């Protein structure tokens, strides 16, 4: 059992948890994730490790999108999680590159955050662009500001920061003409694809963190395979970060839809149970 030492809402449907998982906390590096199973009947889902501390706790930030994440978001301080395994995946490539643009869309900001911290620490000039649909859904603004040399906030409705998409801001940054050593983009797949298309003509090295459906997270099932440079790669062990210009995003989108029907039914059952309880 892995006790939750802190649970706190960050935005609508987004919650931060600190979980006592000393083995994971000790080893984790930016870019890595855990797989957890809430309880016996639950499924295994991957979540990025946003942070860790010296007391053996890890931080995860969860957006409630379906049964498991919504269930997770009902948990409170003092509850526990049955299984947490990690750290999984390869760590982010961190070096002193120069100017690095970090783009986070929605809960992708939580996934990008630890890498932004590591990039800043490594002496890079960090420009962060974070986007969300509106002010209410924006997360980690203060944290991102603290770790960025420049922070740009984009909302679809203009309720906070500038109105528009993260890609438009990225284009402005590119157009300034100052060299960009690399771009890291994490968020919904269409956003990552759009970023890749903006940087491709300028041959700016672009990294994305892919979110295929996972089960074991150890390279045993192959369910998380993604097409990168025409080759099948297992995102849980070879990734989750890949060269955006090599990724076949269409296959990723299609594979992520595979269980739509079961997911919808499962969520409906869960919400009915919640109502009754």
């Amino acid at each position, binding site marked *: 059992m892995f006790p939750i030492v802190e649970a706190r809402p960050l935005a609508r449907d987004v919650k931060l948890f600190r979980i006592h998982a000393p*083995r*994971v906390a000790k*080893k984790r590096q930016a870019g890595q994730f855990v797989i957890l*199973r809430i309880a016996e*009947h*639950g*499924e*295994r889902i991957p979540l990025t490790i946003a942070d860790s501390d010296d007391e053996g706790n890890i931080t995860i930030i969860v957006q409630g999108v379906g*049964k*498991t994440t919504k269930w997770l978001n009902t948990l409170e301080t003092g509850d526990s999680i*049955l*299984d*947490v*395994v*990690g*750290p*999984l995946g390869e760590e982010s490539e961190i070096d002193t590159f120069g100017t690095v643009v970090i783009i986070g869309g929605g809960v992708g900001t939580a996934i990008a955050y630890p890498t932004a911290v590591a990039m800043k620490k490594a002496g890079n000039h960090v420009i962060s662009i974070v986007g969300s649909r509106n002010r209410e859904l924006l997360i980690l603004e203060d944290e991102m500001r603290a770790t960025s040399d420049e922070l740009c906030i984009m909302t679809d409705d203009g309720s906070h920061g500038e109105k528009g998409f993260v890609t438009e801001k990225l284009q402005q940054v590119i157009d300034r003409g100052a060299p960009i050593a690399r771009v890291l983009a994490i968020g919904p797949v269409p956003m990552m694809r759009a970023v890749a298309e903006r940087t491709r003509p300028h041959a700016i090295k672009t990294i994305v963190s892919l979110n295929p459906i996972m*089960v*074991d*997270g*150890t*390279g*045993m*099932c*192959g*369910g998380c*395979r993604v*097409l990168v440079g025409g080759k*099948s790669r297992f995102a849980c*062990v070879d990734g989750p970060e890949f060269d955006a210009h090599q990724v076949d995003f*269409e*296959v990723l989108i*299609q*594979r992520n*839809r*595979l*269980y739509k*029907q*079961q*997911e919808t039914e*499962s969520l409906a059952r869960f919400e009915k149970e919640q109502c009754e309880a």
Partner: protein
Amino acid sequence: MAKPLPPKERMKIPRQAMPEQEAAVRARNFGEVNLGLEVVAAETEAQRCLSCADPKCVGGCPVGVKIKDFVELVLAGDYLKAAAKIREDNVLPAVTGRVCPQENQCEGACIMGKRFSSLAIGNLERFVADYERQSGQIGLPERAPSTGKKVAIVGSGPAGLSCAGDLALQGHQVTVFEALHEIGGVLLYGIPEFRLPKDIVRGEIENMKKMGIDFQTNVVVGKSMTIDELFDEEAFDAVFIATGAGLPQFLDIPGEHFGGVYSANEFLTRVNLMKAYDSEHYDQPVYDCRDRNVAVVGGGNTAMDSVRSAMRLGAKNAYIIYRRSEEEMPARKEEVHHAKDEGVEFMNLHNPIEFIGDERGVLTGVKLIKMELGEPDDSGRRRPKPIEGSEFEMPLDVAIIAVGTGANPLVQSTTPDMATNKWGYIVADEKSLRTNKRGVFAGGDIVSGAATVILAMGAGRTAARSINDFLRTGEW
């Protein structure tokens, strides 16, 4: 208690059939197929044994179970002693009695098989093990006094479990690290409930916990910690690596990324470990097989388990696509027969060359080519070769690839000073199972490549003996 008959009489007794769930019924449920011998049938079967002076059967068993002796104890009606006799060489008799490829091992060597049919050794082994379990009188062996030595075991499949059991008896403090959330390796996530009920595996693990073995799930060695850290930070005195051969192989043909194409590992993990077959109670989804066409590519146990699972998930048609002929199939004969009885269609001498999908990226069909057998290859099996111009397409909703597995590199890549061979398997001395790294031993599928439960258990025993020597003498 039955009395021994003269040999002539014994030979007249027919081999006792294993009662099973009726094919049409079991093909749609996950309950165990084989129901187990009744006492009378077990006694009658035991009477068939000729009690050979030189029992060939023992030589056919990879761990040398004292078959003649335990069968005599069955005849004497002392089932608990019979079980204890098996346990001297085999710690998981309820498992091996069910899943060993007996026809190639003990039963293949039994003298009766030459003229009649071999003794049903596996069924008898299962009978006494089940009797022992149901009696609740499992005689847990005595533990030697504590040696103060700590051994880490990486992986909780049959190799890791049997090694852990033996080392605990020697008085060592044993910790088993498992990447998944449950203990048992392939016994748990691979072999389905209808062939090996999970309660049997769990029962054995409870016994091992009582022996003082510490099980730590959710630990991926190579990620959560390295082998070096096990020695340096966690003060283990020796490590046994038994991580199995869990890396799925694909066919490397176009269309393999379509939705509905699975590795057998993924399909079976979803169905068995995550219990997707009970979707009302468990959240992990599996592709809906109901009224669909499902094909499994391969001819081994994994292929049979996958196709029979698909059948039970409601497939309209379930096919085996195998590039050689039935004669070359590596699966246990019983599984092939069971699959056929359950309505699985065998398309032997066929090979997929392309998967076909629709605009949503979902599988709709497969292109196959017919094969014929040519000259024997290195393994002695006749090499299949494609018949030119014989390609055709068939509609398909789910494809499961069961063409073998390889070595998962997680431990090896973080232990660079440990030798591996060109396929990535760990190199270990055949007799001692020592690797080239001091204090590190390895065995089971991660050394041999995908093999069998009993061979993995045998490796676990060998390793335990050799680890014990190392811990007592300190000599490498």
